[in-house]
């Protein structure tokens, strides 16, 4: 192949000049990856010794012997508020409240983080940059880390969970909203301005119709994501049904744990389906 090019005095394409079997760059990369994996095996020392097949099947089977006693108060000290189904509802509302908090904060901030609105003069351009960097920082810190840090402020419970979720989520929603605003078609704004409308009327007639559906769609998508995350918060002390799941595993109550997992799966799958259906209609 390469002769075709050399015969005509053309430069030989890179792909033809290198033999994949002898190219030292490729071989180095492969060797490095293998080295990292080898070191990884040594350091993490993954021990699966306990999990012989029989034992695994046994345990999984226990997860399906659902213990329905957790659905009703188990003794005179428990009320319906200690039951698993109530905890599940509480967990769903953790996600809803976190979404609501982030919505309230992200909505106004997203306008400050939209390039087409803010790059008019140096001051607003600086605000734009700060807002977008803030969104990125908020987004980059994992929810569980934030919840753990918030334990120091609120102690274990729903407050740490809700605000931990909201903290991360403000970054995500802010970015999505800002990008929706940046995607606005300026043509209708110009046309409505040309009719003699004032600024508020222009926003009302030309901006809002362009952003409401994307905003609703993004909010539902984040609600879905937050309800999905909420059951995990309890594992680090952020409230909700996650704590019950954690405890039942620790106490070897596999029947209870299995039922809780099942409830979580049903909730998440339902949310996922409903959210997808709604968003499909909002295009």
């Amino acid at each position, binding site marked *: 192949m390469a002769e075709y090019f050399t015969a005509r005095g053309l430069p030989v394409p890179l792909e033809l000049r290198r033999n994949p079997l002898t190219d030292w760059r490729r071989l180095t990369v492969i060797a490095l990856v293998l080295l990292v994996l080898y070191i990884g095996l040594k350091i993490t020392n993954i021990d699966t010794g306990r999990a012989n097949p029989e034992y695994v099947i046994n345990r999984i089977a226990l997860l399906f012997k659902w213990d329905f006693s957790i659905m009703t108060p188990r003794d005179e000290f428990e009320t319906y508020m200690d039951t698993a189904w109530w905890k599940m509802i509480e967990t769903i509302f953790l996600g809803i409240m976190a979404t609501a908090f982030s919505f309230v904060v992200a909505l106004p901030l997203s306008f400050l983080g939209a390039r087409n609105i803010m790059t008019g003069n140096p001051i607003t351009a600086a605000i734009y940059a700060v807002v977008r960097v803030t969104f990125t920082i908020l987004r980059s810190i994992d929810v569980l880390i934030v919840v753990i840090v918030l334990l120091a402020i609120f102690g274990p419970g729903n407050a740490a969970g809700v605000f931990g979720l909201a903290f991360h989520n403000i970054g995500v929603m802010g970015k999505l909203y800002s990008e929706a605003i940046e995607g606005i078609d300026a*043509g209708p704004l110009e046309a409505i301005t*040309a009719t003699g409308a004032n600024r*508020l*009327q222009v926003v009302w007639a030309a901006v809002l119709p362009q952003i409401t559906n994307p905003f609703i769609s993004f909010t539902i998508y984040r609600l879905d994501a937050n309800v999905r995350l909420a059951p995990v918060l309890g594992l680090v002390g952020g409230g909700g049904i996650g704590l019950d799941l954690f405890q039942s595993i620790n106490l070897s109550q596999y029947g209870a744990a299995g039922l809780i997992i099942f409830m979580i799966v049903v909730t998440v799958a339902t949310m996922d389906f409903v959210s997808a259906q709604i968003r499909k209609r909002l295009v």
Partner: protein
Amino acid sequence: MPPIVSINDLVKTYPGGTRALDGISLDIQRGEFVVLIGLSGSGKSTLLRCINRLVDPTSGTILFDGIDVTTADRAAIRRVRRRIGMIFQQFNLVRRTSVFSNVLSGRLGYRSTWRTIASRPTSSDVAAAFENLGRVGIADRAFSRADALSGGQQQRVGIARALMQKPEVMLADEPVASLDPATSHSVMKYLEEINKKDHITVVCSLHFLSLARRYGTRVVALKAGQVAFDGKPAEIDERRFKEIYGEDAEEVEIGPDRPQPQPLAADGAEQVDPSR
């Protein structure tokens, strides 16, 4: 009669340093159909947008019916704007909303902010919206989403929206540049109709000289921000054409005026002849 629009030594320099308009002087009389021609970048869009102050001129004056648009305050500009309709190459409709609300929004300049926010158009505005949609032949599409319409239909919605203002002047920035030839004529004929029947002064930029000849009562050619020609369409001969468009340019004809048989039979509404 004094001119409806009187432009004197208008200059527009954009922040980047581009001198888009370089001393334009132009009087437009009531009832004229002025066609702006010129290469792209010659300043047609800028000139049109200076008239309703969508663009702030750098120097010079523009009088609209005796009102100095260049020095008027915000409220005064809005009052001038509602007397000037405008349509655009890209139609500039709010795509997600209905044809009807798009047309209705042409009336915003006359209505209070609270009425806008409360979505309570007056019954006379609603009636006018249907009347204007009927005039451009798409009353039956009133409650379709704007982006469900064809290009020609969208531009007619744009015309109906502008008509809601009961304008004295209609600015049109390359209104048919995104349309095919047959549809172009159907849209241009509505402009011709509102010019002749409603006596609305039209200032319209066009890409094709053939359209300018067919519809304009006067042609103004811009070249590098200056007026290179101003006169009757018939006065543009070979030599003037090359002055405006450059030595290498060739004149092209755009489509048949009255397409027969009609090539767009699939879209019957496109063929409505407003002069009937």
